[in-house]
């Protein structure tokens, strides 16, 4: 009897320490880069060009990261959610859905550098666009769509059938039921999907090297609103070196006395940006669900 109790306590302790170490690792990573970056940080680092002064800034690459993220989400989220609606509500069971699931898992496990090469062949070379934010976003969509679809499908499958039956019994059609019951209830799960895929977009370097480009960007001219002009930062056709790619680049080819400082600063910006996006999406998801369901809590 005593042994059983001991084992119980031991299991509790082990599980708590594993869970605790997850938090510790997160804190360690954040603390490491924030502490390393803090002495050299000035707000101008966020907006200045890389060539400014000695340390420079990440203004253009930060912009590019946000831009590529937004463009990728614009393509990935609707496609992923619609794909998930099909998988969860229409496909049923059978060979077709097995094949789709198998393909999903395969694409999801292709190394991102390979996805980058594929993206180069299709979105850079075959289209003749060159290195563009759009090519990067499309490569990242190839890479992220399976994950987004799977997470969204799980979120929809977690909605109890009782809710669907209630809707049908009130005379709603299947599409109305999906649109007004299943999707609103699934929002928290969908937001998790968005956050996980967005984190991969922000952090991804390999898939973007050959698609969005790795040139050191010059000054961005935000006054240029021509969406088809590759020199406009608003254009999907501009070359878009992102934070992660920039970090990879200065770390691998950078020389000079301040490379470490710039790398630490860039890493800190990257981490904080991911955190902000993460918390922001959660808040937005809650707001959205409250709006749709008409509730306060």
């Amino acid at each position, binding site marked *: 009897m005593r042994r059983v109790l001991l084992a119980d306590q031991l299991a509790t302790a082990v599980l708590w320490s594993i869970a605790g170490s997850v938090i510790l690792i997160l804190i360690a990573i954040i603390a490491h880069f924030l502490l390393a970056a803090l002495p050299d940080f000035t707000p101008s680092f966020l907006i200045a060009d890389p060539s400014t002064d000695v340390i420079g800034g990440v203004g253009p690459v930060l912009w590019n990261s946000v831009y590529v993220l937004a463009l990728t989400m614009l393509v990935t989220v609707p496609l992923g959610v619609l794909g998930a609606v099909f998988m969860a509500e229409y496909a049923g069971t059978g060979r077709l859905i097995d094949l789709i699931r198998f393909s999903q898992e395969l694409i999801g496990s292709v190394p991102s550098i390979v996805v980058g090469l594929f993206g180069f062949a299709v979105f850079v070379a075959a289209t003749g666009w060159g290195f563009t934010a759009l090519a990067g976003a499309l490569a990242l969509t190839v890479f992220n769509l399976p994950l987004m679809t799977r997470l969204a499908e799980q979120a929809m499958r977690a909605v109890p059938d009782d809710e669907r039956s209630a809707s049908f019994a*009130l005379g709603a*059609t299947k599409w109305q039921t999906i649109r*007004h019951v299943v999707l609103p209830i699934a929002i928290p799960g969908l937001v998790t999907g968005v956050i996980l895929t967005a984190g991969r977009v922000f952090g991804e370097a390999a898939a973007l090297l050959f698609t969005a480009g790795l040139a050191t960007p010059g000054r961005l001219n935000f006054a240029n609103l021509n969406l088809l002009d590759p020199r406009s930062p608003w254009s999907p056709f501009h070359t878009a070196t992102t934070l992660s790619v920039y970090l990879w680049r200065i770390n691998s080819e950078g020389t000079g006395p301040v490379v470490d400082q710039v790398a630490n600063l860039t890493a800190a910006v990257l981490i904080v940006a991911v955190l902000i996006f993460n918390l922001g999406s959660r808040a937005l998801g809650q707001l959205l669900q409250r709006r749709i369901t008409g509730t306060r809590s």
Partner: protein
Amino acid sequence: MSYAPTIPASAESLAPTKIRVRDLRISYDTRVAVRDVNLDVPEHAVTAFIGPSGCGKSTILRCFDRMNDLIPGASVHGSIVLDGEEINAPGVQPVELRRKVGLVFQKPNPFPMSIYENVAYGPRRHGVSSRAALDEVVETSLRRAAIWDEVKDEYRRKNALSLSGGQQQRLCIARMLATGPEVILMDEPCSALDPIATLRIEQLITELKTQYTILIVTHNMQQAARVSDRTAFFTLGDDRAGYLVEEGPTRMIFTDPANRLTEDYVAGRFG
């Protein structure tokens, strides 16, 4: 010269027939689940379905709003006529039928939305969008389901899931009333509720029957005796298919049934 009948026709049997069921048979794939159901359901009265578990009472109930359409492999044969119209005819849209025939589930299943949005759900899906019209139908339905007084202060914002089980079930009744049904199907609506909440639902059923035709499946024979005007007793045959043993005024089914099986069941000797 003929004598007047010695047993006066009961008031219930004079009510016009709302639903007429003939030779109903329901199967799942090749297995027959229910067979040989012939039944006339009178308007503005409560008809209770009783019988042992697995005899197909709920399955039959769900034929009346074609919810069985949603179960893969289920097929319904025979005739169900509602207000003179065959509900399984090719031209009938289940979506339309379900507005006319409401369903209350065994377990309260409000949407995780505000009380208001729950009740407004049906009307919104049927194209009502004006704020005033929605406000009106929500309030009327909540009042009719006898839950208005408990929620009137916060029904626009309060999440339906924060209500008690009994309140949730009355909310589900309000939500169903908001689609403007004529027939109400109730599938053991009190089985998840405590005795006090059950009593409130039973009172509500008695109020609603003046305007609606109600069919209720119940495991609780006292409940059938308390709320229903007519009772239909189903059981399982030797072929494992459910069938209708007999149907009649509730008083008669409970005190003087024609069939021995009914007598044994209502006396609590099996089931």
